[in-house]
């Protein structure tokens, strides 16, 4: 078990170290490392994101706790949460103690002109995959499977209503949107 915990620690340390640009930037790498390695399936992963959005605290910390707890209980949760915050803890500690000269160097600024659009591209790719797969669950982009035969019309209805709500009230908070989508799910799936 200790070896597995160490592996989990390393995975989340990597996730913590390569997240630039806030909580959502963590999702692509987390999906690859956690769903890709078979720790949990994609649906549970997305459910966890939904709950993380509607509970207090940063999404990244919530997700780490979820996945650690899912496999190894409280001990696992402590390991993954510590691992995910440790890289930034160390970096900020160094900056707080020695100043931020390094961040203002031309090298770092240049690197970020490539890094920023990359992170956005990564998040778009996750969003696109999830959106398409809520409607066509049998499509797998990475395996080049484009099976349009199974179509989830219930999710299409939910999607249209949510987009309409967002169109009318652009500043809908994430938690409200999650609650609304839960209510719509209940309604649409129970009735149809």
């Amino acid at each position, binding site marked *: 078990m200790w070896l597995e915990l160490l592996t989990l620690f390393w995975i989340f340390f990597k996730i913590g170290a390569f997240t630039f640009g806030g909580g959502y930037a963590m999702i692509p790498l987390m999906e690859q490392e956690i769903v890709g390695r078979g720790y949990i399936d994609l649906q549970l992963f997305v459910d966890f994101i939904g709950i993380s959005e509607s509970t207090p605290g940063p999404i990244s910390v919530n997700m780490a706790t979820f996945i650690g707890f899912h496999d190894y209980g409280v001990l696992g949760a402590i390991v993954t949460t510590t691992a995910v915050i440790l890289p930034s803890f160390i970096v900020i500690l160094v900056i707080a103690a020695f100043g931020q000269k390094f961040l203002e160097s031309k090298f770092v600024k240049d690197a970020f002109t490539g890094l920023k659009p990359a992170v956005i591209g990564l998040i778009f790719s996750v969003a696109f995959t999830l959106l398409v797969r809520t409607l066509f669950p049998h499509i797998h982009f990475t395996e080049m499977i484009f099976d349009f035969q199974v179509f989830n019309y219930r999710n299409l209805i939910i999607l249209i209503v949510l987009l309409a709500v967002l169109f009318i009230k652009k500043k809908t908070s994430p938690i409200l949107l999650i609650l609304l989508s839960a209510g719509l*799910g209940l309604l649409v799936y129970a009735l149809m």
Partner: protein
Amino acid sequence: MKQKLSLWDIFWTFFKIGAFTFGGGLAMMPVMRREVVHKKNWVDDEEILKILVISESTPGVFAVNSATFIGYKLRKFMGSLVATLGVVLPSLITISIISLFIIQFREIKWVSYMFSGIQVGVAILIFKAALSLSKKLTMTLFTGLVLAIVFLLALFTNINVIILIFLSALAGVVFHYFLSLKEAKQHVA
């Protein structure tokens, strides 16, 4: 600061910040400002802004970064440790409790209906996050190309995300290197 702040005070303040912010990130700015700027006077708005800028170019999330930074300012290493612990602990407790029930809970028919809806909601939220981030991006031919290429590679291949991030950062450095070479040449001519 005339007297040493108690570690407990630091811990408790950040515990409250962690407990009352939903969604993380910039959503926690108002609560953070109320607690550490207005109530406690530990930092001023300018420092909050500085932390925000640092957070954008360092790994990790704003909540944890600011806790570490402000904690260090108040009581060096121990301060940063208790502040970070404080901001994370509410999540750890809440999510651990939810985790105890969630797997069985999902088996209930009505609950599974709700989660089917949540799958759609989450997809939209992630899409919104990408959209609002891209609005803040200065669009040039270079950044547009990087965005498009990374998007396609991530969508259709299993290339490691860390490698994609690393290569993009490298591309940024190389691109600006050649740009400065070109400018230098024009200068000479």
